[in-house]
């Protein structure tokens, strides 16, 4: 796509919404749209321009059980948290912290915990303007380790006042074909774990605090190996890959 020619941009955004881009073109457009606010604006405009075409169809009844099927799967879905306007700085900080943690992960966990305080306070500093609110909010960090060899694989850290973030910081587990990792949490004293969704190796998962059953000192986080699509039960069914408890910073 010629990203300068206004007609080309309009046509490409229109085809994106229409659905006539092939898989490679669609990926390229989505990548371009992530960087280009004007292109995103074009795509939103097409969503609304073409919406009237859906009125050519008569509504079709859905099975009464469909909603129950959706609701049953909701807790397994990690929600994307909107990127704040000042995302550049935050991402840089995250990147630095991930690099740092990778380097650190071979070392002693005690040292890691100390370093984490510095990292979370300096590298993942909140954007200016929200600092005041965040001073009040307690911050937590959980270092998730392999029960087999105590290697640190992932960390869970609070992000601002509203969310937690799962980040891979060390050598991950090998996920066999047909399997997936599932992310769980359990506050101390809770009856059972709550699923926070499926996780791919290397993925950064942000979960709004509203979806956690609780977050306090010693809240447990773990990654388990599950069949593709997640545990068939409302609790882990496979082995623990990484596990750790939150500490307050």
């Amino acid at each position: 796509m010629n990203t300068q020619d206004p007609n080309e941009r309009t046509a490409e955004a229109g085809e994106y919404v229409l659905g006539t881009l092939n898989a490679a073109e669609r990926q390229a457009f989505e990548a371009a749209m992530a960087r280009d606010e004007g292109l995103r604006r074009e795509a939103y405009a097409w969503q609304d321009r073409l919406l009237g075409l859906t009125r050519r169809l008569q509504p079709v009844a859905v099975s009464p059980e469909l909603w129950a099927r959706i609701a049953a799967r909701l807790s397994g879905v990690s929600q994307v948290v909107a990127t704040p306007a000042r995302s550049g700085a935050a991402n840089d900080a995250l990147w630095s912290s991930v690099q740092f943690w990778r380097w650190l992960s071979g070392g002693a966990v005690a040292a890691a915990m100390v370093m984490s305080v510095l990292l979370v306070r300096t590298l993942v500093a909140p954007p200016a303007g929200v600092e005041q609110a965040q001073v009040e909010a307690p911050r937590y960090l959980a270092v998730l380790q392999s029960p087999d060899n105590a290697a640190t694989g992932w960390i869970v850290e609070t992000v601002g006042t509203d969310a937690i973030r799962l980040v891979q910081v060390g050598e991950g587990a090998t996920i066999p074909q047909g399997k997936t990792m599932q992310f769980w949490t359990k506050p101390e004293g809770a009856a059972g774990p709550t699923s926070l969704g499926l996780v791919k190796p290397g993925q950064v998962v942000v979960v709004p605090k509203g979806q956690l059953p609780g977050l306090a000192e010693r809240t447990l986080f773990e990654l388990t190996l599950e069949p593709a699509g997640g545990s068939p039960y409302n609790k882990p069914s496979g082995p623990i890959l990484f596990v750790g408890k939150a500490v307050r910073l």
Partner: protein
Amino acid sequence: MTDPSASLAGDFDHEAALEACARGERFALRALYDREAAWLMAVVLRIVRDHELAQDVLQDAFLQIWQKAGTFRRELGSGRGWVYTVVRHRALDEVRRVRPEVNLGDNYQALAEALPTPEREDLSHDEAALAHCLSLLDDPKRQCVIDAFVEGHTHEQIASRLSKPVGTVKSWIRRGLIALKECLS
């Protein structure tokens, strides 16, 4: 079942519903579902042509709405337009994965007969404007745009239906879209 005329009225705040979904409020997704599921089912069924598969697609699409609601930006456009795009793209992924060749069976005929004309009296202002602007396009361009949107066909499928080169179809669609934008602005 949703009253078919209900979604014409502007009394459902799709934008607020998506923002509530982004905050993890399940009742908002349920409200959106109650409001739109039957309409979205029609859109998906038209593309995937199988009732069971359409329900699976709709189920996945609602989970995607829940997952991605935080990326919706109300200052750029309507929540309803955003929802339909998420659902249509999920349906297109499915039909292109499962069945690259569209099977024009009896089911398709039955659906084609159910297609109402654009001159319905219950169209909103925007829908009437779109119908008007579509009517100003030459026949082949209008056919291509409608075929792509409603049937979910690719350039190649439309080209084979119309016995035209793929490049011609692609050019008709792009020129048709640019003309539509000008007419609607």
